[in-house]
């Protein structure tokens, strides 16, 4: 994992601050940094997204290709994940240096999508046992400033939302051989429903408290973290403890308390008018809007420079962790 060397004094400073609910950049323990999401950035792909969470920069491209369905699930397509930790993030990732981290993240993604409800795989089937769509989700890590899993899960969700799979028809010949025909209209495509795609929330334990969205320096101070993958309906699809320290059972339940009211918000948001948030999930605090459904149209508005800008651009969508 990309890490930064901190002196003891800096670690103590961060830990004392966290005890007082005050982090180095002025956030509270349960505040996220500003998130910027942009879709349709790479035109060669079926769908793509770029997410900037502070200085963490992730680019995801989804390519849809035709393949054979798996033997145990003949009526479904499937997703394949690949994570490339590029040397742009840190020189340690040059050559094969980033492979370990990449495999770990890819395995986590497989686990969180390994259930029936996340993505409706039946829509990816063309003809049972013969053809199906395989979605290759490729994650490219450009810059790393902590909290990789959260950013990657947002980016994957946005990229899947942006994915446009061409509609195909299977034509049967007299001899029984099948032909696959692509529709002529380039805008005639299937979109995936990403309402149930989970997002990951990483809770790092620093001292006796836990923080959400840790930067690289804060990750260096924390001994253990809990990764919770949760959908907007509050369904947990994966739970994992990472790190070399150990966690108290009570603290795990305490950390999970943070989760329910993130999901409670989504319920609130769903009722309000401007909130047709197709992502269906607000990551932490800041909602992410994808403003239009037309292919290749608007990108999302960047929530870049802090709250004032945010209010102007997104029209007042700024929620803080109200308790």
């Amino acid at each position: 994992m990309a890490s930064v060397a901190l002196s003891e004094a800096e670690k103590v400073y961060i830990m004392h601050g966290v005890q007082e609910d005050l982090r180095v950049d002025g956030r509270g323990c349960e505040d996220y940094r500003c998130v910027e999401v942009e879709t349709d950035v790479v035109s060669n792909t079926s769908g793509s997204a770029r997410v900037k969470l502070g200085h963490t920069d992730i680019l995801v491209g989804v390519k849809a290709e035709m393949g054979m369905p798996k033997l145990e699930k003949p009526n479904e397509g499937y997703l394949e994940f690949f994570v490339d930790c590029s040397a742009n993030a840190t020189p340690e990732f040059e050559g094969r240096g980033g492979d370990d981290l990449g495999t770990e993240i890819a395995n986590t993604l497989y686990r969180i999508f390994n259930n029936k409800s996340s993505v409706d795989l039946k829509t990816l089937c063309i003809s049972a046992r013969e053809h199906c769509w395989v979605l290759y989700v490729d994650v490219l890590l450009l810059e790393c400033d902590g909290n990789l899993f959260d950013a990657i899960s947002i980016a994957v969700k946005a990229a899947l939302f942006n994915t446009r799979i061409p509609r195909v028809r299977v034509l049967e010949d007299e001899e029984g051989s099948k032909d696959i025909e692509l529709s002529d209209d380039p805008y005639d495509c299937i979109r995936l429903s990403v309402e149930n795609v989970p997002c990951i929330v990483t809770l790092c334990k620093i001292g006796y408290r836990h923080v959400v969205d840790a930067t690289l320096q804060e990750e260096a101070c924390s001994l253990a973290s809990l990764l919770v993958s949760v959908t907007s309906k509050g369904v947990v699809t994966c739970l994992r403890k990472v790190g070399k320290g150990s966690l108290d059972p009570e603290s795990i339940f305490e950390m999970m308390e943070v989760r329910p009211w993130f999901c409670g918000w989504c319920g609130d948001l769903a009722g309000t008018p401007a909130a047709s948030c197709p992502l269906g999930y607000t990551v932490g605090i800041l909602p992410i809007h994808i403003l239009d459904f037309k292919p290749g149209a608007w990108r999302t508005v960047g929530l870049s420079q802090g709250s004032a800008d945010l209010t102007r651009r997104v029209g007042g969508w700024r929620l803080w962790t109200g308790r």
Partner: protein
Amino acid sequence: MAGLELLSDQGYRVDGRRAGELRKIQARMGVFAQADGSAYIEQGNTKALAVVYGPHEIRGSRARALPDRALVNCQYSSATFSTGERKRRPHGDRKSCEMGLQLRQTFEAAILTQLHPRSQIDIYVQVLQADGGTYAACVNAATLAVLDAGIPMRDFVCACSAGFVDGTALADLSHVEEAAGGPQLALALLPASGQIALLEMDARLHEDHLEQVLEAAAQAAQDVHILLDRVVRQHIWPSPDYPLLQSGPWGCFSPNIPRVSWHRQGWYAPHFMLRTPQLQ
């Protein structure tokens, strides 16, 4: 691609350009805060990102340190979704290794390595979208990134590709033109002196035509130099002649386009056009 006319009778190419015309180039420096130097360039549909770390101490074995100059280390990586067909491995395959070596050769000729003995300069290039001319885009992006990092160089390194179709030399080939199988020349130039840092050609070309193709590539590289020069000046020193770049509303990846008023658009008009939102 049988039947695809690369150069029409009126002299237009597949995408509507003339024979010696470059694709639209947009570039931006300083895209990443954590790296020492970074740059992003778009040449038509080819998008490349370059990041520079250094000069810093040699990582790994100290035995590789050179006593009188710096070690330049390059890695070329292209994203798995960058090409039409999905690539299996972003880097580590033969083509990427070869490109890395070529980049290294190019930059060792340009960077003043004697100023930093026993140290290492890392240049990492990432291709996000490949539509022909990837080597040229990488070299141009890496030049800007090295300048952003403040590493002294003899001169800019500007690169461009060239081909030959129907008796005419074409500059800045797109993927369609490269895939057609004609001769392709990649040239990296130090523009002030006209010195060639790297020259590479694939496929057969009669020697009578070589000079024509070489000249087309050199002229295109000089044109690229004018654009890169402008980008660097705007980044470092905004002035009325080179107005301050304003951030666009469409996210950070789209490079900042200078908001030049229409009467200043003179010679640079074909390359720096005001960008309209991409609504389709």
